[in-house]
């Protein structure tokens, strides 16, 4: 599903964020990306959805060579990806329903599909009853669940998330994790950068640790491994 072969990322200012990363994430995997601050986790996530270009090496996502994608092909890469950020990124002047529907509107789905899918994913994150509310009227955890609903509404093959629980308390984080687990069980690959030690330790998923831009550890059923 995601394949890196000797991938490096050096930013314009000379900062080496990733060096010579080679790894393989097969379909259906649930991967935690951990590591100290500044190690290169976010950079790794950004490479996957072609926010940043790899400086060296080959990166294949869902069969596409991301490094050689034409700008006009980027949208089609992203239609197969669901992206979740730490800061939710909902539109404040649209309702919950409209926020989720927006992701389908902009890829020109039919009205009927939109109605069906949006209701379905709102059910899945347990917030169908908030459909008419605005994001400002929701708690942080609820807003993140809406963001997840938006990320999966187009049936992506991979969901990538950069510290999705970074702003949430432990209890709420667990609600979010259960949703990701549920999505993963339905066959969607999950790649998540996180600092959430208790979650990583408890869930026993694959853990890739990045330190100083390199892979320090890649464990099946791994643990967080740092003292935060």
């Amino acid at each position, binding site marked *: 599903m995601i394949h890196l072969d000797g991938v490096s990322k050096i930013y314009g200012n000379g900062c080496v964020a990733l060096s010579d990363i080679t790894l393989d994430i097969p379909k259906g995997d649930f991967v935690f990306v951990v590591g100290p601050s500044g190690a290169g986790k976010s950079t790794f996530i950004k490479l996957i959805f072609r926010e940043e270009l790899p400086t060296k090496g080959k990166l294949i996502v869902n069969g596409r060579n991301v490094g050689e994608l034409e700008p006009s092909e980027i949208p089609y890469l992203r239609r197969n990806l669901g992206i979740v950020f730490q800061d939710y990124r909902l539109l404040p002047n649209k309702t919950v329903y409209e926020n989720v529907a927006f992701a389908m*509107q902009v890829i020109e789905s039919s009205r009927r599909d939109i109605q069906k899918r949006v209701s379905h994913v709102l059910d899945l994150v347990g917030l169908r009853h908030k459909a008419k509310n605005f994001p400002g009227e929701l708690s942080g955890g609820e807003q993140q669940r809406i963001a997840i609903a938006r990320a999966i509404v187009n049936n992506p093959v991979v969901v990538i998330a950069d510290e999705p629980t970074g702003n949430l308390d432990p209890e709420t984080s667990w609600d979010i994790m259960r949703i990701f687990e549920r999505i993963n069980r339905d066959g969607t690959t999950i790649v998540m950068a996180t600092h959430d030690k208790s979650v990583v330790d408890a869930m026993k998923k694959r853990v890739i640790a990045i330190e100083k831009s390199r892979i320090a550890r890649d464990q099946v059923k791994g643990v967080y491994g740092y003292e935060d």
Partner: protein
Amino acid sequence: MKIRTMEYFIKEALSSLKRNGLMSFASVTTVALSLLILGMFLVMVLNLNNMASTLESQVQISVYLQDGLTDHEMREVGTRITKIPGVVQVNFVGKEEAMNRFKERLGEQQGLLNALGEANPLPNAFEVKVDKTERVKAAAQAMMQFKGVENAKFGQEVVEQLFALTKMVRIFGLVIIVFLALAALFIISNTIRITVFARRKEIGIMKYVGATNWFIRWPFLLEGMMLGFGGALVAVLFLNETYGILIHQVYETLAFLPLIPQYPFITNISVVLLVTGTVIGALGSTISLRRYMRV
């Protein structure tokens, strides 16, 4: 493109126009002013051109006779004129008739002539038509030599001056129009820049969920085109109204001035202005999209 998508684009564009009310107003006003001036220049240049060619096609020679000729002498001159090569028509216009025509031309301002009392300073004359414009000059020069002829005048000079004037207006107008078009372009691109800025969050999300660049661009492009079209519409309405009034006024006071009739003349100019406005709008937003959206 799906109808639903088009609906969405138009809705987005309209809501932006409303949200940036003041900037939208400024843009429409600038476009309207620029295009109004463009329209006025078009009206002027085309009318001057039209006048020049109308006059050119009607070039005739007025042969003024000396005072105090006998009827016989005058008839003699007439006969000699007819024999000049190219002359196709010779009409005698006596002093009285000339005065009557002059009065007619003056219309309501006839009162000016009262100062003359009974005196009639206008000479007897022949109006001579020549088959080809190129022959006018030679014919006039020949007539000037005839005994009893005071002067022979033709409109060539006026025509040439009119053409020269048209050329000047055209060059001068072009400079002003280029300048104004740039101003309109600048203000529209600024308006769109503000819209892009107000919507940067939305644009970001659209990119993440895989909207194509064209899907993201369209609402902004439409907004620019609406601004351009709106400005052009204001200019067109104003131009149509003023040209109508102008024609009416000229008809009442300076009836001999050959203005181009309002329709379909103004309709054609309107089409030009509306297309220009829309294109300026589209260009303006393209500039902003290139610079501020990187899509």
